[in-house]
């Protein structure tokens, strides 16, 4: 057991500056998560520029704090005002808000906090056990396996994203094509740079991410400004009692394990996890009739489930270098800026960083536990920043963040351009996530495809001859065909 490695990781993370920064990051993440219309990936992308000058471990722990804090923070507004701060907290409204209406908001938030913490910690334990093993297997991967892995990751996200499959594929190819801009990494030929020196390194991730995720969402948010304002609400009621906590232990354990494994699957993140965990909790409950009317189990299950997905999603990110969700894609971009490339080599050559990340995740969970249990009343006051101030503030953050990537205004222009692209794509129901994942996975897919084909002297059958790549490609084809088959089996829908 690598317990001593984890202890070393803690030694590296646990310095006063880092602790302060983790708490700061978690608090900001909670704010972003709790405010309707802003989600975890926007939070990480917008606050990323603050970390440029920090040492890698400090920067990473802050970003992990934002990530975990945002997923937890969504529950607070879900309970108090019946509006989930993030989609991952949508299920928490079912029982959380009825509890608040009965004057038990304190109990509901306390339950959400403790379940989120438990879910987070259990998923980190699974991450620590699983990631190094998976990384060791992945060390044996060659170009065909890596190509299959990249295609697999992309296809799952495409088939799960909202909108039709064809639109998802178009979005994916769009991202892959954007990923070919810049110097060809195999022989240095400049491609699609239109003579612009600034594009020789390709598009910088951060301006593209900020544009596609944050700016596009702000433009949509201002159209429904009023509905996003936080109503004044007071937190009444006490924390859950020990007896109440005991009664939800099985629910928390089940949801945490389920959520961790759902988080590992690419494309199925915190949102799907919370829905599945809620349904399972209802199915296993002794008092299913209480669900929807203010059941504590109904709060515990989705909250343990969505925070467990955070640790689960880190498994493929750290061990394979494959992001399984929007937020982990942004985190991958952030890691790269810090000069850390997640993947099997991280565990071989940079094991200290890997365990530093584990320790940082644990610390982030402790941070939101403390803030959630003792500081939530003050936190709710901060949440009442009116949207007419918040939205312009986020736009200025988007500007300064894109500028500071390379200290030039070209990136700000690129950010704005992608903001518009994202806005029109969202409005016309083209999914955004495949664009970003494709942009990040594209170079990996291309170099490994070309290497594999050079290995096989141009024979595409190499992907069928290697068992791992064959299995991955079969799952890929099935996941792409699944929606088509489902539609054929289902009776023709007059709405479609």
């Amino acid at each position, binding site marked *: 057991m690598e317990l001593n490695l984890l202890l070393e990781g803690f030694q590296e993370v646990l310095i006063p500056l880092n602790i302060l920064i983790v708490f700061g990051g978690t608090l900001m993440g909670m704010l972003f998560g709790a405010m309707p219309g802003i989600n975890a990936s926007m939070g990480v992308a917008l606050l990323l*520029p603050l970390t*440029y*000058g920090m040492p890698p471990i400090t920067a990473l722990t802050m970003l992990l704090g934002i990530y975990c804090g945002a997923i937890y923070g969504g529950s607070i507004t879900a309970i108090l005002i019946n509006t989930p701060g993030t989609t991952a907290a949508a299920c928490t409204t079912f029982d959380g808000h009825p509890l608040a209406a009965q004057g038990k908001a304190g109990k509901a938030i306390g339950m959400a906090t403790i379940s989120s913490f438990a879910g987070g910690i259990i998923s980190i334990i699974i991450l620590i056990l699983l990631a190094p093993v998976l990384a060791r297997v992945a060390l044996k991967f060659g170009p065909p396996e890596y190509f299959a892995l990249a295609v697999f990751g992309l296809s799952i996200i495409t088939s799960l994203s909202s909108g039709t499959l*064809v*639109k998802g*594929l*178009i979005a994916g*190819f*769009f991202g*892959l*094509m954007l990923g*070919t801009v810049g110097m*060809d990494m*195999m*022989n240095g*030929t400049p*491609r*699609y740079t239109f003579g612009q020196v600034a594009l020789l390194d390709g598009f910088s991730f951060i301006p593209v991410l900020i544009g596609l995720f944050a*700016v596009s969402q*702000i*433009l*949509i948010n*201002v*159209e429904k*400004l009023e509905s996003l304002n936080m109503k004044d609400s007071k937190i009444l009621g006490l924390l859950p009692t020990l007896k109440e906590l005991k009664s939800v232990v099985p629910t928390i354990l089940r949801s945490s394990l389920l959520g961790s494994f759902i988080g590992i699957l690419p494309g199925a993140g915190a949102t799907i996890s919370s829905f599945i965990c809620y349904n399972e909790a209802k199915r296993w409950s002794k008092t299913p009739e209480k669900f929807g009317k203010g059941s504590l189990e109904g709060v515990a299950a989705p909250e343990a489930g969505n925070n467990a997905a955070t640790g689960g999603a880190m498994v493929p990110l750290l061990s394979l270098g494959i992001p399984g969700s929007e937020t982990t894609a942004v985190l991958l971009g952030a890691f790269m800026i810090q000069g850390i490339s997640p993947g099997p080599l991280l565990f071989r050559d940079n094991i200290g960083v890997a365990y530093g990340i584990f320790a940082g995740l644990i610390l982030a969970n402790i941070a939101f536990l403390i803030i959630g249990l003792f500081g939530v009343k003050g936190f709710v006051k901060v949440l009442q920043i*009116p*949207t*007419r*101030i918040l*939205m*312009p*503030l986020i*736009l*200025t*953050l988007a*500007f*300064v963040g894109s*500028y*500071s990537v390379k*200290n030039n*205004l070209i990136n*700000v*222009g690129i950010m*704005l351009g992608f*903001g518009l692209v994202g*806005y*029109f*794509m969202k*409005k*016309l*129901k*083209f999914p955004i996530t495949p664009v970003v994942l494709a942009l990040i996975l594209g170079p990996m897919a*291309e170099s490994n*495809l*070309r290497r594999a*084909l*050079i290995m096989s*002297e*141009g024979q595409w059958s190499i992907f069928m001859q290697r068992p791992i790549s064959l299995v991955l490609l079969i799952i890929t084809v099935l996941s792409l065909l699944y929606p088509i088959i489902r539609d054929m089996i289902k009776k023709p829908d007059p*709405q479609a």
Partner: protein
Amino acid sequence: MAEKILTGLFFLFGIVWLTMSYDLASSNFGGGLGLGPDFFPRLLAILMIIFSLIQLVRTFRKDKKDEIKLNVHGLSAVIIASCIAYLFAIGIIGYLVSTFLFLTGVIYVLSRKRSIKDVIIALGISLALYGIFQLVLKVPLPTGFLI
């Protein structure tokens, strides 16, 4: 209509990428197998053309009532225009002053009432951003004829 235009743009994007891929000289590296720098972009461009055509056909066959309409809200249009103006102002006037003007303007547009408090908030945010990025994080923010 808007959906058709956007899909059409993706189709055109594929055509441009395909045409331009022929200008990427295939070098010796994998060139003999057709695996040079032009290989992957061309593959993607062809797939993009195929799928955007499929989508175009689908949107044309859709009923009028099922069409996704693009209603660009007036507020979004104003915000987009302000962002573009802000981008140019940063280069001409300088970061601090243009950020203050941008924030004051956008907050006014969103709240539709003149308020001294909002102007002070805008000033506070601009100074805080300037302080954090220029002074603490040492990011050299652009200056124009002012700061």
